[in-house]
């Protein structure tokens, strides 16, 4: 693709409002993910058991009838109702002021740089009053903090997965389509085996091969491998179709006549022709990984507590009769939804922009 076509595609992409919106949403999410330790007000596993399912903190500007330019919150204190359930009420006796760059938990940014100031938090806080902008979970951890840390899993898993899927799918499909004939049909029949079982069933069966208790890094890698194992076949089939028709074209014959090896022809001449399809497919495949991870973690076979991922956080919402007391546990689902939608929008925009017929 030459510069001119690139620029034209880019201009077309910029005219696609949804793609642009999706792009900004993702930039925002990935920015938060990159600086998770700084943006989250607490450490990822900092619990306060007294604050089980505390509702989101209300931010006030008035204390005791006096206006305050600094936002303040009140701590929640609880009483038990007649069903022995905790009911939280704001304890308005003492205000706690919020500030930017407040001192809080000591964490290591990217595991290296030690920091103790966070983007925001409760200033001068000897009583350990917590700010919960999205409420607390069952052991009093800040849900917002958990979501921010959870993005480290949910937003990166797709990229690793896509890397494996595409390496495998492209080589397999490219070889199959280039050689054609018996090898082609044998390879394709084999690939179809993996499309024969409903993907969720295959996912469960593959997960069953490994112990239920694994470290979170192991689970992360396992999920990447499992979903790649399911995804590559469909991709290989499409690339095979494209490669089959490209292999018949003159420039492939010319390369052959010049004595290029088969591998070189596939990698240097055929696969680059499928690039614009690949770019779109990558963007539209990443959501499959986000959803796959969420699904596995949601039913307890994926990332385990205390580590957070969006799916694992949403599993708190599985107990429906309890959600009404703390509906904010549904918030991680909104993040899953928004990131999936953003990738879909960008993929759609790219498809329109890269299509020379439009």
């Amino acid at each position, binding site marked *: 693709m030459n510069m001119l076509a690139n620029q034209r595609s880019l201009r077309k992409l910029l005219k696609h409002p949804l793609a642009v919106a999706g792009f900004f949403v993702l930039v925002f999410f990935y920015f938060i993910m990159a600086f998770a330790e700084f943006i989250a007000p607490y450490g990822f596993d900092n619990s306060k058991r007294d604050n089980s399912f505390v509702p989101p903190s209300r931010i006030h500007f008035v204390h005791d009838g006096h206006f305050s330019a600094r936002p303040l919150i009140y701590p929640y204190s609880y009483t038990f109702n007649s069903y022995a359930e905790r009911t939280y009420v704001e304890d308005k006796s003492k205000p706690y002021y919020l500030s930017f760059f407040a001192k809080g938990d000591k964490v290591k940014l990217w595991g290296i740089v030690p920091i103790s100031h966070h983007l925001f938090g409760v200033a001068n806080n000897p009583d350990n009053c917590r700010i919960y902008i999205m409420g607390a979970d069952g052991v009093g951890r800040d849900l917002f903090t958990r979501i921010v840390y959870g993005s480290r899993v949910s937003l990166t898993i797709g990229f690793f997965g896509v890397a494996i899927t595409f390496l495998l799918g492209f080589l397999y499909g490219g070889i199959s389509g280039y050689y054609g004939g018996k090898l082609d049909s044998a390879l394709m029949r084999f690939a179809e085996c993996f499309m024969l079982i*409903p993907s*969720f*069933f295959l996912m*469960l069966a593959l997960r069953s091969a490994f*112990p239920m208790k694994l470290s979170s890094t192991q689970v992360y890698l396992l999920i990447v491998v499992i979903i790649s194992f399911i995804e590559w076949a469909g991709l290989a089939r499409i690339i095979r179709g494209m490669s089959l028709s490209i292999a018949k074209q003159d420039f492939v014959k010319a390369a052959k006549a010049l004595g290029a090896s088969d591998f070189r022809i596939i990698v240097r001449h055929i696969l680059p022709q499928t690039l614009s399809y690949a770019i779109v497919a990558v963007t539209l495949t990443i959501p499959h990984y986000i959803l796959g991870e969420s699904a596995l973690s949601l039913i307890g076979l994926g990332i385990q507590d205390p580590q957070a991922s969006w799916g694992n956080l949403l599993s708190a919402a*599985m107990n429906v009769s309890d959600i009404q007391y703390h509906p904010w546990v549904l918030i991680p689902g909104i993040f899953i939804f928004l990131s999936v*939608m953003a990738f879909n929008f960008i993929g759609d925009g790219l498809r329109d922009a890269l299509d020379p017929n439009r």
Partner: protein
Amino acid sequence: MRDDLLRRTLIFVPQLLLVTFITFLFINMAPGDILAKYRFDPRISPASVKEIEHKFHFDEPVMVQYGYWLVRLCHGDLGYSFSREASVSSVIVERMGNTLLMSSFALIFTWFIAIPLGIFAAVKQYSWGDRILSFISYFGMSLPGFFLALLLMFGIYSLSNTSFGAAIPIGGMVSPNHDQMTFFGQIWDHILHLILPVIVLTIGALASLQRIARGNMLEELRKQYVTTARAKGLPENQVIYKHALRNAINPLITLFGFSFSELLSGAALLEIIINWPGLGSLMLEAVRSQDTFLVMGSMLMGGIMLIIGNLIADILLVIVDPRVRS
């Protein structure tokens, strides 16, 4: 044509066997097995555990075990489920019926709503109706089914003070007092329990199918035979519904086979979330308890249902498209 169908179906058999073999290897790779609960039970002597092991060939190499499984499969025997203490086939038949009940309703609703909407959007391209539909489709395509299910459950639960919310159950397949109901009461009970899962599955599949139907229809409308039909003075209705529509439908029918697979996958996860006693929740249970034969049986049934879906699509295509017949 019949030979072609037969050939394509026969190819599935070795493929399905290969998948079951891989699954078998995987399940046996995992540490521990279903008999662990017997081993730790002081009431059962080690000798009788050994006996069970021997009877079900657990003491032999994996390849041999798979061989025994295949032989039994040829006799129509899927083996014994230790976790449910019943034959695998009896467990699966019951669960598969439940899954099919849910997914077939969803399938019917999806197709009867999505295709007319897609055609409408294509015929009235760039109208307000089309734009609103596009927007909703984008939303629906990205909304994960499990999240929608949780949202709906929460929504219905919060309305449980009203008569509407109280009437719609949010989990399971039957009410606790199902057995005491009259025959029609039981059917009504089933229908009420179906509302939530069918809505979730339909919304999930509806959006993408509507987009595809719209795209196909637009492509057909751009073709020359449509211009010809218009040029020779055919009324617009006939051009759209008699010429373009029939051609636009064909690729969708091929899609039917694939959509069945996605539907089963989505249904499996949904079943787990809403406690629907179907094949998906059975599979999770089997995987958790390492009940090898039950996992194998569920996988096999999942695969067979998919094959049947594809076969139905092929047959429908033959009925609809005269070009395929020759």
